[in-house]
């Protein structure tokens, strides 16, 4: 009997190209996703060295980070941004890489379009010059972010130098209460694992609570693994995964045969993880971050914590700095914090189910007069689907702006930013200082919580929300 293996072991073993003496192993990369911000220098490196892209057909590109989300027919106003998009375009042409360009119906945030188009499949190794590549692990792939030098390495060799990461089973028992979402779950987990609890590990999320999550909810969970320090998060593929993928554009032609191969990927009974921790889904309440890293998070029914109550001196000083930056007093009830802006979008929460959840909260209500709110769909497809369902009407009738697909105010590289001091309820993944604009104050929440905050003008417990 061969030793029982984890999902990670199986994918790793299958992708190990060689492990030469005295060198880090080389692993094969099945899919390489490329965007405008971290690729120009890599393509330039290839050009200088006279190298080509080894497997252009395994490489897919789209502009997302640095693009306007307003009318796509207008030219890009910022000349440096325009040059970056133009450079991606010319690099894709020169090296034969498929590009879902601005104006293409399938353009979108790279981590939204990968699964949506069936580029992402179980058992694959997937990389992208972006730390939220972990998203794709939701389909049972080993997917992680890399730097630009590694992007160049993958382009040239279709492999990556990589030592095998350690495995970390994060098991979630039970189920989530109504109103509590995958976003709340992952924020809760990060709060307990800390921002570096997953460093050096690949997290595999297991347990009944995870199995109950739909495909898009699983993406939300895996997406934020990096916020706990883990380069990758993964969930074993099951019927939910296969049903999600069936019929998508780029899945294998012989789909049933592929399913048969994917079905043997889940971790074997008795497989050993380097570390395991168990949580209970029933303990999770809707979460709101109060600080400047995603682990600085509490339930919506709690108050802003007091740094003096923290044991670790470095936690204490981080918390004091964070409260000062965020303009918050300890002891303030979270639900009493007024907000100025709402952002519903990002690779964490901009898929159709996220927009449906937000729309169901907003329906029949009006955005508070003190709040400016926007919805940025994750992809052209999500946008069209939402429009077909009339969700755009629900949002615009309530006073939300309805935008074109892109990263937008998740990182504010484009004109969508917070002004200094503005406070935002955001469905994105990072509340770092200045992330959404210099001096901007970000609170991470679920789409439903963001929608409710837009209407109320302050955070509010979605479990008490009256739906029409």
């Amino acid at each position, binding site marked *: 009997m061969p030793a029982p293996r984890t999902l990670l072991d199986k994918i790793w073993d299958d992708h190990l*190209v*060689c492990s030469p003496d*005295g*060198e*880090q192993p*080389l692993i*094969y990369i099945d899919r390489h996703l490329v965007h405008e*911000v*971290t690729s*120009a*220098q890599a393509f*330039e*490196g290839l050009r200088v*060295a006279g*190298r080509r892209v*080894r*497997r252009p057909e395994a490489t897919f590109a789209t502009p997302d*980070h*640095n693009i306007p989300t307003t009318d796509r027919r207008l030219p890009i106003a*910022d000349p*440096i*941004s325009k*040059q*970056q998009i133009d*450079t991606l375009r010319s690099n894709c042409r020169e090296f034969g890489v498929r590009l879902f360009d601005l104006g293409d119906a399938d353009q979108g945030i790279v981590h939204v379009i990968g699964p949506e188009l069936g580029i992402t499949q179980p058992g694959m190794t997937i990389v992208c*010059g972006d*730390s939220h590549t972990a998203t794709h692990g939701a389909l049972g792939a080993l997917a992680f*972010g*890399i*730097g*630009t*030098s*590694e992007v*160049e*390495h993958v382009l*040239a*060799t*279709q*492999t990556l*130098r990589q030592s095998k990461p350690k495995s970390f089973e994060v098991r979630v028992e039970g189920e989530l209460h109504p109103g509590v979402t995958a976003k709340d779950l992952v924020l809760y987990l990060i709060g307990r694992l800390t*921002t*570096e609890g997953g*460093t*050096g590990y690949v997290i595999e999320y297991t347990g009944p609570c995870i199995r109950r999550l739909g495909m898009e909810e699983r993406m939300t969970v895996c997406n934020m693994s*990096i916020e706990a*320090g883990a*380069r990758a998060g993964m969930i074993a593929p099951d019927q939910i995964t296969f049903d999600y993928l069936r019929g998508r554009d780029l899945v294998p032609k012989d789909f049933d045969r592929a399913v048969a191969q994917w079905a043997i990927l889940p971790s074997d009974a008795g497989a050993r993880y380097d570390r395991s921790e168990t949580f209970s889904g029933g303990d999770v309440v809707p979460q709101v971050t109060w600080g400047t*890293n995603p682990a600085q998070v509490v339930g919506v029914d709690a108050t802003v914590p007091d740094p003096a109550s923290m044991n670790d001196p*470095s936690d204490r000083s*981080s918390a004091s*700095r964070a409260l000062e930056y965020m303009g918050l007093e300890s002891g303030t009830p979270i639900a009493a914090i007024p907000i100025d802006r709402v952002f519903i979008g990002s690779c964490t929460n901009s898929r159709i189910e996220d927009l449906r959840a937000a729309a169901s909260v907003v329906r029949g209500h009006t955005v508070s007069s003190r709040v400016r709110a926007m919805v940025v769909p994750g992809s052209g497809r999500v946008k069209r689907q939402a429009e077909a369902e009339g969700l755009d009407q629900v949002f615009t009738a309530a006073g939300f702006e309805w935008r074109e697909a892109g990263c937008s105010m998740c*990182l*504010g*590289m484009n004109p969508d930013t917070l002004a200094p001091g503005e406070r935002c309820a955001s469905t994105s993944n*990072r509340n*770092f*200082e*200045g*992330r959404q604009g*210099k001096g901007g104050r970000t609170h991470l929440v679920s789409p439903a919580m963001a929608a409710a905050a837009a209407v109320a003008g302050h955070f509010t417990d979605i479990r008490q929300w009256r739906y029409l």
Partner: protein
Amino acid sequence: MQPFTTHTGNVAPLDRANVDTDQIIPKQFLKRIERTGFGQFLFFDWRFLPDGSADPAFELNQPIRQGASILLARRNFGCGSSREHAPWALDDYGFRAVIAPTFADIFFNNCFQNGMLPVKLDEADVDELFRRAAAAEAAGHPYRLTVDLRACEVRDDGGFTRSFAVDPFRRHCLLEGLDNIGLSLKHVDKIAVWEDAHGLAPLQGGEIG
């Protein structure tokens, strides 16, 4: 790639945990398509006041820390985004090594790709370095350290010596300043064998090595 062997330089202490790559190089500077010239934007939002002048309160703006080439930091340095612009900016500003108790994985990797050495020391040793730096600066001179990759050791001239662990392959690449891609392409036959075994068509135009 520039090799890293041994470096002696002044230390800039940055006493903050979880310094993320959004702070190291804010997003508005990621639009450039070059690898160089990012040093002027390093820690931009912390370094400069809204009117563009240097913020005198920021750690790196202390006169005694000008010209420092070793950054001393707290745990989880470099967390957040995968942007290699972070080590590019640190390097361009003049840093050759970063010492911290822990680093985020992607940042840690990215340093090695750029001839910059991230050194992990125990939290207690990092505390000691912060103390020594504070004492030296209080006495009116910068604190100097030597980071020696050959001996895998950090030392000052006041009796502090600690060895650090580093992956042997990465150490070798850094000492020699090797081109990682060139090195991997030596295994191109193995890559082709893997592709063949997994049903991928051979490359058109043949192998490149």
